[in-house]
């Protein structure tokens, strides 16, 4: 699908054409899911966040000014929805009783030991343990292959801020890996 085709589909979707919007969903759903997963770290939550983001995108499609790519605009919504879900998840977690927390941490330790057996899985775990903004920029920039400009547009911050987060994320990643190796 060319950019002109997508623009035409967006115009149709703006007039309330559900079929056109469905085409947009099919085109961007996997990437939106990956972006959501990079933040929420959970398949169920990623599914919910991605679907919720598409619903919001449809409702606010009239506000899309087409001065940026549709994917950038959509991922910005996905990031916002996902960050909100993470906040809710944290609130839920803080309500957990000590007993449940102990059980969860025991299970996590088991998982951790198991994951250590595979280096790449271990690397992935360290990546996912990074602070949320650092993790999001590293994944969006280096795993999802978006440009620094796109990432700055999605997260509504300057390219300099994105680079700072990226740099700190990469340094944290390296330091944590070195610490574990020792």
């Amino acid at each position, binding site marked *: 699908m060319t950019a002109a085709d997508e623009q035409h589909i967006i115009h149709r979707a703006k007039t309330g054409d559900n079929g056109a919007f469905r085409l947009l969903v099919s085109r961007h759903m996997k*990437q939106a899911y990956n972006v959501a*997963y990079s933040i929420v770290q959970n398949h169920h939550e990623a599914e919910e966040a991605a679907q919720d983001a598409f619903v919001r995108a449809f409702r606010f499609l009239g506000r899309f000014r087409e001065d940026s790519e549709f994917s950038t605009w959509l991922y910005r919504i996905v990031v916002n929805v996902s960050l909100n879900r993470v906040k809710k998840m944290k609130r839920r977690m803080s309500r957990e009783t000590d007993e449940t927390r102990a059980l969860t941490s025991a299970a996590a330790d088991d998982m951790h030991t198991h994951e250590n057996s595979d280096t790449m899985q271990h690397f992935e775990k360290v990546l996912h343990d990074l602070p949320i903004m650092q993790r999001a920029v590293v994944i969006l920039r280096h795993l999802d292959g978006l440009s620094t400009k796109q990432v700055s547009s999605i997260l509504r911050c300057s390219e300099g801020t994105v680079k700072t987060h*990226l*740099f700190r994320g990469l*340094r944290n990643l390296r330091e944590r*890996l070195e610490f574990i190796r020792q």
Partner: protein
Amino acid sequence: MRIEEHILNLLYDYLLGEMSEKERLQAEVHLQHCEECNAECDKMQSTLERLSELRYAPSTERSSEFWSEFPIAVGRRLQAHKPGGRALHWVRWWGQLLYGSPRYRIAGALIVLAVGTVFVMKWNAGEKQISSIPDKGKIGIPLELVDQRAQKYFRQSGVLMVELANRKHYEGKPTDLSLERRVSRQLLNEARFLKQQPLTPYTTQLMSDIEPVLIELANSEHHSEKPTVELLRDGIFQGNLLFKVRMAQIAYDSTTRMRIQYASMKE
């Protein structure tokens, strides 16, 4: 020694090739001389290489059925979000008045203003009602009604004084008497009306005994210190007002009961 952050950002740009030719040449010259930056550059390069190996896409872990179902699930959600499609739609609508666009916020402010005006008007109407109690000279009030109001007056005075007598005072904390002040003002108004009615001398005397306590309370501060509460309590105990008010209540209860019995016998 740690390298400054803006230099590290430049190294990052250099590794990703996100800089002009001139900047790239300058960076290379710097890297030939600076061991720290060179070491940092190598480490960053290896981290980036490992990241590129990872290329993890969680979407690949979901089945093809999941992806064929995904647009349908979004469609279902869209249906549910249509106006009136959800029971909680009105909650979101009210939320718009608080957090929505300026137009919605102005509408919300106008609603609050309208409700506030109605509330203030009702409140003032209530105040006027209390202050415009008709006296006997202008409107003849049936004796039964006078007795009922005297009965209510003594019952409320009793409750107020029992409350004051039992009020605990915590050191260093002022006591909130705002409710008591409001009630005492209403009772003073009521006493003014009742004194103009044909009551027994005992009742009129008792009302005069209660009056100083009510006046003192009505003029007290919102949050009174210990001495004010103690003064009121002394006034109640010294005049033996609790006992006297209780007696008056019993007398009026029995009078009202007798009147009701007499009225039913007449019928």
